């Protein structure tokens, strides 16, 4: 549980860094933003309890080692992925737009989530630059301050309502954070 709290905090801090990097003099620093997006990805995995999330954490005694850590570190997705299903022989880099069926599970039925759902739809591949940034701004506008608000109450946050509100924002983070990196 404490890992999830720390992961949550790291996600908030990382989002803040990506957000403030946009106004920097001299333009975006590709190296720093790449590192921040890698931390964001690891923390997000831990927070959402995704398979391979444990790879970001130091090994705990007892339980068997986490699966496929090596492949994940190289940037591949776990084998039960669409890419593997397509039969691509080489290790595919993580493609954020294509999510496995498990991830795409819409937390439907939870009220109050609706406004963020619109922002979630990934823009078309070609329309990279401005489309993503506009979506990112809207996400940060609601999601980031939302995350900050949640963070204060994180220690006691057990209500499903609160947690699920964050999850779609977190799930949709990946394309935009890497899009910011990819300028």
């Amino acid at each position: 549980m404490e890992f999830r709290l720390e992961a949550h905090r790291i996600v908030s801090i990382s989002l803040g860094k990506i957000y403030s990097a946009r106004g920097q003099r001299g333009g975006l620093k590709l190296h720093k933003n790449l590192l921040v997006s890698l931390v964001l990805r690891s923390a997000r995995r831990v927070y959402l309890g995704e398979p391979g999330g444990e790879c970001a954490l130091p090994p705990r005694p007892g339980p068997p080692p986490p699966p496929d850590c090596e492949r994940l570190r190289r940037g591949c997705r776990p084998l039960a992925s669409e890419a593997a299903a397509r039969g691509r022989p080489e290790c595919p880099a993580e493609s954020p737009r294509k999510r496995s069926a498990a991830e795409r599970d819409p937390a439907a039925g939870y009220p109050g989530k609706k406004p963020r759902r619109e922002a979630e739809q990934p823009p078309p591949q070609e329309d990279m630059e401005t489309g993503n940034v506009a979506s990112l701004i809207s996400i940060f506008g609601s999601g980031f301050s939302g995350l900050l608000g949640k963070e204060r109450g994180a220690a006691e946050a057990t209500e499903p309502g609160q947690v699920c509100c964050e999850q779609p924002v977190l799930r949709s983070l990946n394309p935009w954070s890497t899009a910011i990196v990819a300028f």
Partner: protein
Amino acid sequence: MAGAGGGGNDIQWCFSQVKGAVDDDVAEADIISTVEFNHSGELLATGDKGGRVVIFQQEQENKIQSLSRGEYNVYSTFQSHEPEFDYLKSLEIEEKINKIRWLPQKNAAQFLLSTNDKTIKLWKISERDKRPEGYNLKEEDGRYRDPSTVTTLRVPVLRPMDLMVEASPRRIFANAHTYHINSISSNSDYETYLSADDLRINLWHLEITDRSFNIVDIKPANMEELTEVITAAEFHPNSCNTFVYSSSKGTIRLCDMRASALCDRHSKLFEEPEDPSNRSFFSEIISSISDVKFSHSGRYMMTRDYLSVKIWDLNMENRPVETYQVHEYLRSKLCSLYENDCIFDKFECCWNGSDSVVMTGSYNNFFRMFDRNTKRDITLEASRENNKPRTVLKPRKVCASGKRKKDEISVDSLDFNKKILHTAWHPKENIIAVATTNNLYIFQDKVN
């Protein structure tokens, strides 16, 4: 104590000089961003965030009164780069000098390469200590004489004048980098040099500014697949066909330009497997290499990542031959250091002239030296408190945990705003230049 190269005696480091403003209020333009001795060690160049280059020259020793080696005094100051605006991308290009590299001296003038994020410039620094006097058509102040007053002819003669040091830009190498330049390195062929940005490395000829060869390109076809960037690159000191580049993933690739025009396939890959017990959210960040430097011999190379310095033998790819912990006590503080951005600090490292001692910076204005022969290390502080010339520096110690001894400093008391990122070692003597945020300290070994 760090040992001197070749001898067996321990060095005692003494304060020599400090350059820069005394104010605690640091002007951003004065932040030092690079420090480099030239090949003889007579000249010491610094670059700052304001785009200026300041060159210091060592005064030739007074043979009678050699209480210390010569002092460094300002020799030349010039504005190397100005801020620019890229209208196409709506981006400001910072004038901060990222790197300075001296070219080996070929004639009376000195040449150096300086670079900001986008443009490299070749500067010629020359001395003028004579000027022609006695022109026929001009007065001494330059005004033209009335031709009717010229009744005799004379030959102008060169007369001594006060020394004037002029810096002039001889070449401007622009528009070859889409991403931010992090390294430049002059080749041992004395004709070419390389420049590296986050994703590409270009090879230039010093005489040709309108084109360069791209020799490394790691940009993926789909930028979303980007997982690593180039962090530093350097030519081998002796083999003009060999260079290395380091990555944000902690790997170093050695490339041979004879193998192919585009050196995307490395000849050697240096990588140490990760220690699984040290894994954390920040493992990737702290393994990113911030600097790579060949030894003077060319047999070894040194890399700096966030917590350690590693020495690699070029003949062994699977692990470094030596690893030195710079500030291991920070490993438990990585989350806070991520929060305050310190984890992204890019520390440089350097070799002494005989490759027996390596040096790098840390926080709280501390810097560390590791003697490769004796395996001893020392922590020293660059501070105006030790201000008297020939004051021997006292070794410092950080108390990681437990009871703090007298004179030790606890990790929580360290000032993370006082960081030493740039250090340089004189190529031949035990003289070091250490840059704090806006001051340059020069230390020398104690001369008896």
